[in-house]
C-alpha cells in the first residue's frame, strides 16, 4: 500500500523534519454532530486522525477514554453513525487519513466482511482492533489489505523478539508501539530513552515501516519522543473534552488549542 494516505502523511511529516501527529477522539463524544466538529478541528493540526468506535466493556482503556466512550454510547452512537461521521469528514478532507479504532466484538456483530466494505465505502484508511492480536488477526488483516485498508499491528514492551519479527513482517504501512505496560491514559512510567530504545528495535527490523508511539503522550511528554515517526495523543484529548463539558466551555475551541500546543512542541 505504498501510495496510501497513511504512508503519505509520514512522508510529508518527515519532509518537515518532525514526527507525524496522530490524534484520537471518540465518535459520538459527546454528540454525533459535535464529534464531527471536533474531528474536523483536530485534522487542522493532526497528520492522521484516529476515531474510536466506543464499546462499553473496553479491557485496555483507562478512565479518560472510558468516560468519553460511555458518554458517546449514552448519547446514542451506533456503528453506522461512526461510518457516516467518517464519510462526512472525508467529503471535506479527502486527503486526511482516518483510522478507526475499537474492539473486536463490534466488528464481529456487524460481520467482518460487511464492516470492511462499509469502511471502504466511507474511505476509512486504517483499522486498529485492540483485542485482535497477532496471529489471530492474520485472516482479518489480509482481508483489510485486499481492500486497501491498513490493518495496524500493535507491539508492546512485553512482545518477545521472535514475535516482534513476525509482527513486523506481517504489518502494513504503520505499526503502533505501546510505550509501557498500561491502559490508555496512564502516566508515563518509563523513561523516554528506554521507549526510544524499544522503538528502535522495531525500526531496525524494517526501516520502511512507519512506527508510531502511543500511551502516556501528553503536552509534557511529547517533546521527549520526537524521534519517532509518529506520536499518538488520545486520553489527553478525551480529558480536555470532559473538562470543557464540565466547565461549560466550548469543546471544539479547547481541543483546537490543545492540539496546537502539542504540534508546536514537536515542530
Amino acid at each position, binding site marked *: 500500500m505504498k501510495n496510501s494516505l497513511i504512508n503519505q502523511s509520514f512522508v510529508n511529516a518527515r519532509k518537515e523534519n518532525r514526527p507525524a501527529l496522530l490524534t484520537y477522539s471518540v465518535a459520538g463524544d459527546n454528540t454525533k454532530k459535535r464529534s464531527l466538529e471536533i474531528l474536523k478541528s483536530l485534522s487542522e493540526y493532526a497528520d492522521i486522525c484516529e476515531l474510536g468506535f466506543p*464499546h*462499553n*466493556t*473496553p*479491557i*485496555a*482503556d*483507562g478512565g479518560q477514554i*472510558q468516560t468519553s466512550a*460511555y458518554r458517546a*454510547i449514552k448519547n446514542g452512537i*451506533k*456503528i453506522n453513525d461512526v461510518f457516516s461521521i467518517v464519510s462526512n469528514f472525508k467529503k471535506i478532507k479527502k486527503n486526511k487519513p482516518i483510522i478507526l479504532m475499537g*474492539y*473486536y*466484538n*463490534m466488528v*464481529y*456483530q*456487524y460481520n467482518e466482511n460487511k464492516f470492511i466494505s462499509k469502511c471502504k465505502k466511507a474511505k476509512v484508511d486504517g483499522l486498529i482492533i*485492540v*483485542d*485482535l*492480536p*497477532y496471529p*489471530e488477526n492474520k485472516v482479518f488483516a489480509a482481508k483489510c489489505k485486499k481492500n486497501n485498508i491498513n490493518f495496524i499491528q*500493535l*507491539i*508492546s*514492551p*512485553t*512482545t*518477545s523478539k521472535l*514475535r516482534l519479527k513476525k509482527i513486523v513482517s506481517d504489518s502494513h504501512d504503520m505499526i503502533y508501539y*505501546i510505550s509501557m*505496560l*498500561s*491502559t490508555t491514559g*496512564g502516566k508515563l512510567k518509563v523513561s523516554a530513552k528506554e521507549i526510544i530504545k524499544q522503538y528502535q528495535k522495531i525500526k531496525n527490523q524494517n526501516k520502511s515501516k512507519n512506527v508510531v508511539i502511543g500511551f502516556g503522550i501528553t503536552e509534557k511528554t511529547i517533546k521527549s519522543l520526537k524521534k519517532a515517526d509518529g506520536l499518538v495523543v488520545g486520553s489527553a484529548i478525551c480529558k480536555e473534552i470532559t473538562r470543557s463539558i464540565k466547565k461549560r466551555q466550548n469543546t471544539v475551541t479547547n481541543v483546537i488549542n490543545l492540539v496546537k500546543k502539542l504540534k508546536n512542541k514537536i515542530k
Partner: protein
Amino acid sequence: MKIKKNIPLIDQHDKFGFWGGKFGGNFIPETLKKPIEDLTDKFEKLRKDQNFLKKRDFYFKNYIGSPTSFTKLENLSDHLNGAQIWAKVVSEANGGAHKIYNATVHALICRAMGKKYIIGDTGAGYAGKMLSMAAKKFGLKCKIFMGAKDIKRQKPNCDAMKKNGAEIVPVYSGSQTLVDAVSECMRYWVSNCDNTHMCVGSTVGPNIFVKICGWSTAQISKELKTQIKQKFKKIPKKLKLINCVGGGSSAYGFWSEFIDYDKNHIELIGVEAGGPKKSLLHAAPLSRNAKIGILHGAASYVCQNNEGQIHETESISAGLDYPGVSPIHCFLKDTKRAKYTYATDEEALSAYQLVTKFEKLNPSLEPSHAFAEAIKIAPKLSKDTIIVVNSCGDAKKDRDILIERLGGNL
C-alpha cells in the same frame, strides 16, 4: 461439533484456544500475549509435576477440607414425593464455597512463578474472599476488584476480605457489578503484568484461565464419583446433576467426570439466573438464546445488543449476575451434552425457603437457582431417579438480601 471421550473437556480446544472451533480463544491486547503465554507454559508444566500435584492434593485435603459431604435430602425428597434429591455440600469447603479450589491453585501457581502480587475479580464476593484467604495463607499481597453495587449487597464477604488483609478496589463504571469488576481487573493486569499474577474467578476469560479454573474445580466431581459409587455401589441408572451457572466454574467442576457418559444415563442440567420475574433483564445467555460475542477475552454466548454492546444484567444472586458464560458451557450446549434452563429471583427465593424448611442446609442464592429446578422436576420423576444438586455456596453472605426479601419468613 463433537465432544471427544477420555480427554478432559478443558483440553479439547484447537491451537487458537477455541472449543468447538468457535468458543473461547484469546481476544486480548498485545501486552497480555506474553504473560498469558508464560502462564500457559507454566501451567502445562505444573500439571505434570508430581511435586506440584502432591502440594495441591495436600492443600485440597488439609486446607480446603476435601472431600465435602454427599448426602440425601430425605425430608425434601419425601415432601416432593418423586425423584430422590441428594446434595453435594461443597459449601462445607473452607470459606464456604467452591471458589476456594480455583483460588488455592492460583495462589500456588503465583508462588511457583515467583510473583508476589495476586489480583482477582469477584461478584458474590466468594471468589474474592477465597483469593484473599489463599493469598494470606501463601504470603501474597492481594487486590480484589468488585463492583460498587456488589460491595453493598455482599457485605459479609467484603468484611472477610478485609480481615484477610486484601485491598478491595471498588469499580464504579458501567453496571457496577461483576462484568465491570472483571474488566477493571484485566485493565489492572495490563498495567502490572510484570510482577502481578491474575486469577480469573470463574471458567471465563482468555483460554488459559478457563483451563486453570476448570482443572481446579474438577476436584468436586472426582469426589462425587467416588461418593456415588460408595452409596449406590455403582452409578445409578437415572442420574441428573443440577448446578447453577453464572460463569460456570462450579458446574464444570461438578460435571467434568461425568461428561463421557450418555446423556440419557447422566443428565447435566445447568440453571442460569432468570432475573426478577417481570424484568426484561436477566443473566441467562445460554437458556435465553443470546448471540455469540466477545467478552473479557473469549467468545461465548453473551447478553448484548445488535451492535455488540454488552447488556446490563439483573439477578438477585451476585454470583450469577454476569452477561457472559464459560466457553466450555457453550460447547456443552451446542453439542447438546448439557441442558440449560433458568430460574427467576422469585423461584430461587422460594426454593431457598423450601430447602431450609426441610433440611439442615443453608444454600446461598446461587445454588438456590439449582434447587429451584430440582424442586420443579422431582415430583414428575420416578423414585429411582437420583437428582444431585451442587450446593456450592453458603447463604451467610446473603443474610441482608434474605432478610429484606423474606423478612420474618426466613
